[in-house]
């Protein structure tokens, strides 16, 4: 879950959608504020402000001026609507008027969250969170949150908790797949200036533990004797 200081403003006349999105987004760490009517748009804060989700059916022509102003202040404006609003012409018009995106109201909540997090990364660079995937997309690691997942029967499952060092080693492998990483290079990247004080056996120990926690996917970490490791999912 991402928790951050950004709040998300939601304006919709659909009580069911409001309740559903509110519940889902709150569970994902967003704080959701209801915007009761389009007239309130002009008074929305503009500094370090989170995305605004606007129901197309409630927008009046005059609101587009506010949308342009919000957008100029780098407040992401996402307009949503049903099929009648989702024609290419409408989407082009909304975006041209200053909206950042148009999404169907029937969007899957998981996708909505992924989109919102992409906006949040732009607003608050400190939130920057990139998920690193293996080439076959069987292993992934969140580079900022210390989490890792492996795919089991087509679904992502969190691994057993990784130590900070194990997680950093995994991120290094995922960012340089199919590449021989010399032990010395890994020591330098993980322990930096302290690398000279770290025994190679310590690295071996961390890699062994990481392999175990990745279960069958741990086989992708291959030892090149006398040199280092390659992360390779090729058989």
């Amino acid at each position, binding site marked *: 879950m991402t928790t951050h200081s950004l709040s998300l403003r939601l304006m919709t006349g659909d009580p069911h959608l409001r309740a559903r999105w509110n519940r889902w987004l709150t569970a994902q760490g967003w704080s959701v504020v209801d915007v009761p009517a389009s007239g309130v748009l002009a008074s929305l804060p503009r500094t370090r402000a989170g995305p605004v989700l606007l129901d197309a059916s409630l927008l009046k022509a005059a609101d587009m001026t506010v949308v342009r102003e919000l957008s100029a202040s780098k407040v992401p404006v996402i307009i949503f609507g049903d099929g009648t609003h989702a024609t290419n012409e409408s989407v*082009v018009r909304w975006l041209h008027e200053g909206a950042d995106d148009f999404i169907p109201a029937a969007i899957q909540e998981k*996708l909505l969250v992924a989109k919102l997090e992409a906006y949040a990364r732009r607003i608050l660079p400190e939130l920057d969170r990139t998920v690193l995937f293996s080439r076959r997309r069987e292993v992934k690691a969140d580079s900022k949150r210390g989490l890792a997942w492996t795919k089991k029967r087509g679904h992502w499952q969190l691994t057993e908790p990784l130590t900070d060092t194990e997680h950093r080693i995994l991120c290094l492998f995922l960012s340089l797949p199919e590449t021989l990483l010399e032990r010395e290079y890994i020591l330098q990247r993980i322990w930096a200036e302290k690398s000279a004080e770290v025994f190679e056996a310590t690295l071996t120990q961390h890699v062994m533990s990481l392999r175990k926690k990745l279960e069958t996917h741990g086989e992708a970490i291959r030892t090149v004797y006398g040199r280092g490791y390659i992360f390779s999912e090729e058989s």
Partner: protein
Amino acid sequence: MRKILVAEDDKDLRDMLATFLKAQGYEPVPCADGAQAWARLCSGGAEMAILDVNMPRMTGLELCQRIRTDPALRELPVLMLTVKKEVEDQIEGYETGADDYLSKPFDFPVLIERVRALERRAL
């Protein structure tokens, strides 16, 4: 004139994208695969990247991952193009660091408005 890297292995689409972007006042930097695109990005100059997901040598997702983990390129706005409409694929794209996603086939006016929207919030 803003340079936009266009990584697309389909030559017809790549040429169309380049022509269209040029007509809209951008300077397209066309690349036929992910590895070529990475080399171009490393030599500098592009202010945005439009990446096809499925490309030879290096996929758009791998390329996006490299961009986001490279200190010099990590802020580059990235728009992904894909024929995949699966929600999970799009989520993976966003998780990898894409700013926006557009499914093929797409309308060029929609693409250009998405490029402009991305410019507004990222540049």
